[in-house]
């Protein structure tokens, strides 16, 4: 929407925020040190609204918890927008100067009255009205989100619905106000920045832009493909169709992490060639024809990673890699050289210098500056540029920095693809626990005293109706399969909703039942909304 893929604020800015909407994020557990910054904001008097189907540990710090039904975020956001417009709390000067498409947006959100939103979302109309008023009238306000927004069949539209609210009120492009997607992995931001996206080159240059390609071809000394590649989900579809026959998988464990994982394992197993490069023999690596043992990127290798606030920071080798494990860059270079290219043996520093040549966002970040200044935030176009704490200040410049106005997006409510039925009457949503991480490849390595394994959280009323008790092992089934797991009674969870983490696939192969419907705009699967049934085992 604004032309660059990154959170618009620095963590420091939330210390001064007046209103915080924490929407689809349990940052207290998933981003604990960011939550320290949130707490500084709250201690300084910010009001926080937690929008989440679950009454999370984060929401306990909020002034209000808006417990919406899974997958009704757009209805809620549109109602917030409508209520702001209806009361004249929007920012007409900003809208006129910096945005386009307001009239269409206003017309599109008109059906989303408070009462209608309450009907769809289950959130009381008064709470929606209160949040809308607080957000609109705040001097500085931020919307933070995580996978509760993006892991839906319409995740991109969910994001756009939140961006609309910032455009409506001018809460973007200024110190303290903005839109903050919290990144789930230590270099997911950096991966995108470096062009690990099917349609982008490093620095977000478009693959389809001939001028951009020419810049890269001049440095690379060879043609750059003019067509966007496939994102992960399309790759799996191409594998299933037999069109993609060889895969080189680096630092990813899709045989445990993908939704509807039985399907994933089958297509990986059917490949002509699967190469896996990882630090452990993961389940994906067990399926591979060739495994390259890699060193641990942050403790055994040199390089950089980029955080949720666009801060590029150095990782450094502290210990030697074990056995035959080698730096990812060395393995890749050797593979390229073996195929006849002449890459030599570049270091992380060499590659960084190449990147600086090609990406204006990173041009001012010398290796020495990254060392001396402890990290720099992009854009940092020149060596005397201090880096950019927040993005999109151009929205407030008289000439919009030479850009066009930022468009509102018309998006409409479309609930989860898998509706609840008599056969599968309960909603399952998934998320992280504080002390564990994804498929456990890393976090299984330490003995956490507060770890309890993957259990299905169930509201006590649902459990009573089903005749199941706390700790009982049950069969949990979705249209895709079944897993056996323990039940944990959770009074804070609304009736009809169930929740589990997904950190112990060897014990609970949870992704056998998650929903692999995916957002055509992002390729992200609807991990947050499956329909399930619980059956007693005996």
């Amino acid at each position, binding site marked *: 929407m604004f032309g660059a893929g990154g959170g618009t604020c620095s963590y420091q800015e939330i210390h001064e925020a007046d209103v915080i909407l924490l929407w689809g994020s349990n940052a207290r557990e998933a981003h604990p*040190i960011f939550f320290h910054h949130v707490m500084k904001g709250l201690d300084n008097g910010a009001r926080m609204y937690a929008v989440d189907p679950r009454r999370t540990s984060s929401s306990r710090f909020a002034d209000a918890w808006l417990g919406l039904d899974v997958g009704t975020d757009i209805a809620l956001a549109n109602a917030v927008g409508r209520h702001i417009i209806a009361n004249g709390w929007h920012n007409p000067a900003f809208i006129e100067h910096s945005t386009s498409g307001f009239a269409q947006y206003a017309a599109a959100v008109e059906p989303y009255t408070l009462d209608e939103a309450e009907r769809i979302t289950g959130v009381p109309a008064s709470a929606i009205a209160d949040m809308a008023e607080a957000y609109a009238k705040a001097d500085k306000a931020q919307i933070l989100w995580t996978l509760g927004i993006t892991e839906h069949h319409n995740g991109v539209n969910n994001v756009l619905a939140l961006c609309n609210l910032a455009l409506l009120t001018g809460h973007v492009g200024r110190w303290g106000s903005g839109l903050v997607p919290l990144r789930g992995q230590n270099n997911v931001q950096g991966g995108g920045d470096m062009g690990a996206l099917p349609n982008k080159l490093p620095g977000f240059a478009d693959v389809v832009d001939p001028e951009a390609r020419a810049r890269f071809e001049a440095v690379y000394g060879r043609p750059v493909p003019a067509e966007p590649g496939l994102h992960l989900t399309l790759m799996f579809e191409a594998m299933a169709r037999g069109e993609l026959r060889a895969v080189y998988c680096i630092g990813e464990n899709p045989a445990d992490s993908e939704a509807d994982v039985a399907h994933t394992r089958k297509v990986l197993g059917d490949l002509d060639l699967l190469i896996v490069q990882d630090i452990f023999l993961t389940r994906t690596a067990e399926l591979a024809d060739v495994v390259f043992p890699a060193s641990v990127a942050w403790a055994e290798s040199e390089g950089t990673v980029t955080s949720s606030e666009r801060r590029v920071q150095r990782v450094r080798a502290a*210990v030697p890699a074990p056995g035959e494990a080698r730096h990812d860059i060395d393995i890749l270079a050797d593979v390229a050289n073996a195929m006849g290219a002449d890459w030599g043996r570049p270091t992380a520093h060499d590659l960084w210098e190449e990147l600086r040549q090609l990406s204006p966002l990173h041009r001012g970040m010398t290796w020495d500056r990254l060392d001396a200044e402890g990290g720099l935030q992009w854009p940092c176009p020149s060596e005397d540029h201090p880096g950019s704490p927040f993005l999109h200040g151009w929205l407030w410049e008289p000439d919009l920095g030479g850009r066009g106005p930022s468009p509102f997006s018309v998006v409409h409510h479309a609930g989860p693809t898998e509706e609840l039925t008599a056969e599968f009457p309960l909603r399952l949503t998934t998320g992280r626990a504080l002390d564990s991480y994804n498929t456990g490849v890393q976090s299984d390595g*330490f003995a956490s005293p*507060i770890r309890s394994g993957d259990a299905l959280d169930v509201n006590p009323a649902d459990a009573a109706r089903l005749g199941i008790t706390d700790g009982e092992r049950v069969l949990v089934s979705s249209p895709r399969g079944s897993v056996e797991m323990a039940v944990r009674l959770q009074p804070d969870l609304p009736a009809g909703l169930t929740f589990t983490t997904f950190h112990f696939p060897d014990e609970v192969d949870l992704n056998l039942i998650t929903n692999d419907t995916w957002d055509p705009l992002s390729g992200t699967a609807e991990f947050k909304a499956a329909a399930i049934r619980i059956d007693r085992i005996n």
Partner: protein
Amino acid sequence: MSETPVTITVDGQPVQVPAGSTVLDACTAAGVDTPTICYAPNLTPVNVCRVCVVELEGSRTLVPSCSRRAEAGMAVQTDSERVRHSRKMVLEFLGSAVELDQAPQLDPWMARYGADPGRYGPAPATMDEPLRVQDDLYIRDYDRCVLCYKCVEACGDDAQHTFAIAVAGRGFGARIRTEFDTALPESACVYCGNCVAVCPTNALQFKTEFDLRQAANWRPEEHSVTRTVCSYCGVGCNLELHVQDERIVKVTSPSDHEVTNGHLCIKGRFGWAYVHGGADSDQT
């Protein structure tokens, strides 16, 4: 931020510091080393240890430099007989009741002020509490606790906002406790280890360090410390990896890093074990 800097006199020497600075900041700016125990740059001062006191002209009592704001025209003495005597007594009394042999940063101050805890008996009269080893991440040794409150502050509203521990009891019975003195794994503790990181006397100690000390194999003078970035989530917390014999033995974060302010979560603090093959591998 744009406020006028403040000039105060430290031991007769004028020193200019930014508005909002403390007397301790001014002493440091003047090149004067000040002993501190309960002070940390990333915590709110609680003024309990009294070892940083200075003599402030016009003040009846000595003032704690860590919390007293520098005001224009102040004149402080950091090495007067009264200050030296007070610091000596504080260090001596602490040493008479607490095991300080794992707090080597106190040794130079003990020497400077001639503090001799041995005057009160051959061994410190400690709290005499059992060592608490309740999990694989950190231990609690109450005989080393000086009740400086740093752990309470880090667990509470200075950082973590978990409030798993507080000072319970009064006088000689005062202890840092979980609620109802319940075992840590059953308490509200979330094992961020931020209390351990700020403990000045090793009363709170990472289990890796404890085990290595038990094996007489803790050699901090040989440690290399490498700064890198945590491998979990996307916040970008800086880690300092303390390495002995090519193995990570401790993880901290720089207190001046603007992302962490020295604080980490359980994954950043303890989640590194997989680098060496996991929790079951030999740590010593």
